[in-house]
């Protein structure tokens, strides 16, 4: 699509419409003027022809002929005429009469003489010779051809049309300029809005739409949309920046640990046993870096929707597999994982991700409850939604930490989590997976009583039934 200007389009459209109107008015005016002027011209023509008939008189000869008596000389000089009697004898004609057009049809006809155009009239006249005689005299029929030049009429018509056309064109120019000015002024708030929006960058998110833009009904939706979009972008940009900063901090710390472990070994000569122990520790530090990186990648994958958009998994089975996976860890602290549920609960999600979600929640529950305390997990189905609940009797989460538990790298008690090997990404991954499959996750906790994680996912049972 070619770029174009709404202003120019509007102005062009309006001017075109006006031009068509001007042309129509001029055309109509011409038709009307021609009609009116030629009607009066015809009346004049008939009057002059009648005066010419008045000039036809008895010739006072033996044959009782008629003749022109000479009064016809008072008719306008530029007119043409010819008078014939019934026998075709020419009684007289004007000096500039050059003859009849080939075949005059109708009452009025066109004629030309001496380079001029004439409109001519043909009338039949009757002159009675000797009306006082017995029998009422002798009727003599005459035919009168009378024409007058149309040049002046036409010039009057053209003058009138020219006046109308000139007036219309003048109005056209004035209205064009007015529209341009008005549109320019009317669009000023749009330009202000654009320049304000152009000032927004990742460095300065400050966007204050001009007050005028807010007050204009056509611009208000655009302004509101811009504000909403920018606010959303700013939030997500800040979240990303926070994540990058946190990730950098996390990795720098992990690398600092590894580097210092290695440098400590080279600080002085050591025994083989010391080196061996040092290397073992370095390996553990390395594993921690590895775990952090792996979790960050898992989170990134869960958040970027690269997995297929449709998959079906049995939530109950995923939970059981995850529980099995952590059985040995649970045994270390004499903990038990109770999994409850009656049969498969199909949800729309990828099995691997679902298992990761269950595993993370189970591991959290195990790590945050004291030795010997059980962890309970169950899956239920409620109409179109499947629910997964994981509950522990641990120390709980402090109310001030509860709103942040899903934040990336957030640790309620950093030093404690670091000792237990937490990266602060587990719950963020859970949240990303739940959101990825159009579900929700929430955590409720009472200090000293326990914590419960509740995941809701759209059930896939309907679709599965259809497929089978």
């Amino acid at each position, binding site marked *: 699509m070619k770029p174009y200007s709404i202003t120019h389009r509007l102005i062009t459209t309006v001017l075109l419409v006006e031009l068509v109107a001007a042309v129509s008015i001029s055309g109509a005016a011409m038709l009307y003027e021609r009609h009116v002027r030629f009607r009066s011209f015809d009346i004049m023509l008939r009057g002059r022809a009648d005066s010419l008939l008045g000039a036809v008189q008895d010739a006072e000869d033996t044959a009782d002929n008629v003749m022109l008596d000479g009064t016809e000389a008072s008719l306008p000089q530029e007119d043409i005429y010819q008078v014939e009697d019934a026998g075709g004898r020419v009684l007289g004609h004007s000096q500039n009469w050059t003859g009849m057009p080939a075949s005059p049809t109708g009452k009025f006809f066109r004629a030309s003489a001496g380079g001029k155009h004439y409109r001519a009239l043909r009338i039949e006249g009757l002159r009675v010779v000797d009306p006082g005689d017995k029998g009422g005299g002798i009727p003599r029929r005459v035919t009168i051809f009378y024409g007058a030049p149309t040049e002046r009429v036409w010039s009057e018509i053209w003058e009138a049309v020219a006046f109308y056309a000139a007036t219309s064109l003048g109005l056209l120019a004035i209205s064009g300029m007015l529209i341009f000015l008005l549109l320019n002024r009317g669009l000023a708030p749009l330009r202000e809005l654009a320049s304000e929006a152009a000032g927004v960058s990742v460095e300065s998110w400050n966007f204050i739409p001009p007050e005028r833009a807010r007050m204009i009904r056509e611009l208000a939706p655009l302004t509101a949309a811009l504000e909403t979009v920018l606010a959303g972008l700013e939030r997500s940009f800040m979240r990303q920046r926070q994540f990058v900063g946190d990730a*950098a*901090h996390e990795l*720098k*710390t992990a*690398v*600092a*640990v*590894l*580097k*210092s*472990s290695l*440098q*400590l070994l080279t*600080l*002085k000569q050591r025994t083989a046993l010391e080196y061996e122990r040092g290397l073992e*520790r370095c390996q553990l*530090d390395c594993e*921690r870096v590895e775990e952090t990186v792996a979790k960050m990648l898992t989170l990134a994958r869960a958040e970027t929707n690269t997995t297929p958009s449709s998959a079906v998994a049995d939530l109950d089975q995923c939970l059981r597999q995850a529980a099995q996976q952590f059985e040995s860890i649970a045994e270390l602290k004499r903990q038990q994982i109770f999994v409850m549920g009656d049969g498969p609960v199909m949800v729309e999600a990828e099995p691997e991700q679902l298992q990761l979600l269950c595993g993370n929640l189970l591991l959290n529950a195990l790590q945050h409850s004291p030795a010997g305390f059980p962890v309970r997990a169950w899956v239920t189905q409620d109409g179109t939604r499947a629910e997964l609940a994981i509950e522990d009797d641990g120390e709980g989460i402090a109310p001030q930490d509860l709103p942040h538990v899903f934040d990336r790298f957030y*640790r309620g*008690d*950093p*030093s404690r989590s*670091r*000792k237990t090997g937490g990266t602060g990404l587990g719950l963020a991954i859970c949240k990303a997976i739940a959101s990825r499959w159009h579900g929700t996750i929430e955590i409720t906790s009472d200090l000293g009583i326990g914590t419960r994680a509740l995941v809701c996912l759209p059930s896939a049972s309907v679709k599965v039934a259809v497929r089978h």
Partner: protein
Amino acid sequence: MRVLLVEDEVRLAENVASALREGPIFAVDCAEDGLTGLHLAENPCYDLIILDLMLPGLDGMSVLRKVRARGDRTPVLILTAKSEAGSIIALLNAGADDYLTKPFDLGELIARAKALIRRGKGAADPILRLSDLQVNTVEQSVHRSGKPVDLSATEYRILEYLIHRPRVIVSKRELLEHLYDYNWEHHSNVIEAHISNLRRKLEAATQQPSIETIRGRGYRLL
């Protein structure tokens, strides 16, 4: 010398503490959160505080401000993962003496720690001199009248502490507090033996008296 290390990353704290104990033979106390760190720093026995910025309980910046607000002049070295100029300027303006960004070099950390302690005690030259006695804090070697004096690690540390405070009476408790970490009281009996060994080795070269014992008050390096 005794150092307070406030760092929540346990493995890093372990490594730094080991390096400081092995390299310049400092006594090191560790705190894992800001509040404990602030509490420990109240004790005037520290010659240097190494402070991490991201701490649970109370962040490093607040610890630093509170330490400075109560008039503590102990040098503070900050460990930070942030390397933006703005945050470093804010740190130095809040009273930090130096900073290191993670991941740092342990050798550099030790060198900076030594320099900060030296500066904190008013010395610029790493080679400390008092009349005919010369202590090289880099090589950890001691010369008297040009002749090398061979000292044990503890003897060297006692001498290093005393030479920073020439001709001042240093109490036994002060000496203990600056040489050993929180369980210094266990070493209180052996300090006299170390002093007497140190005195003997220093006087062997010149027959001149070196460390004076003032009964009930402490020791003085002449």
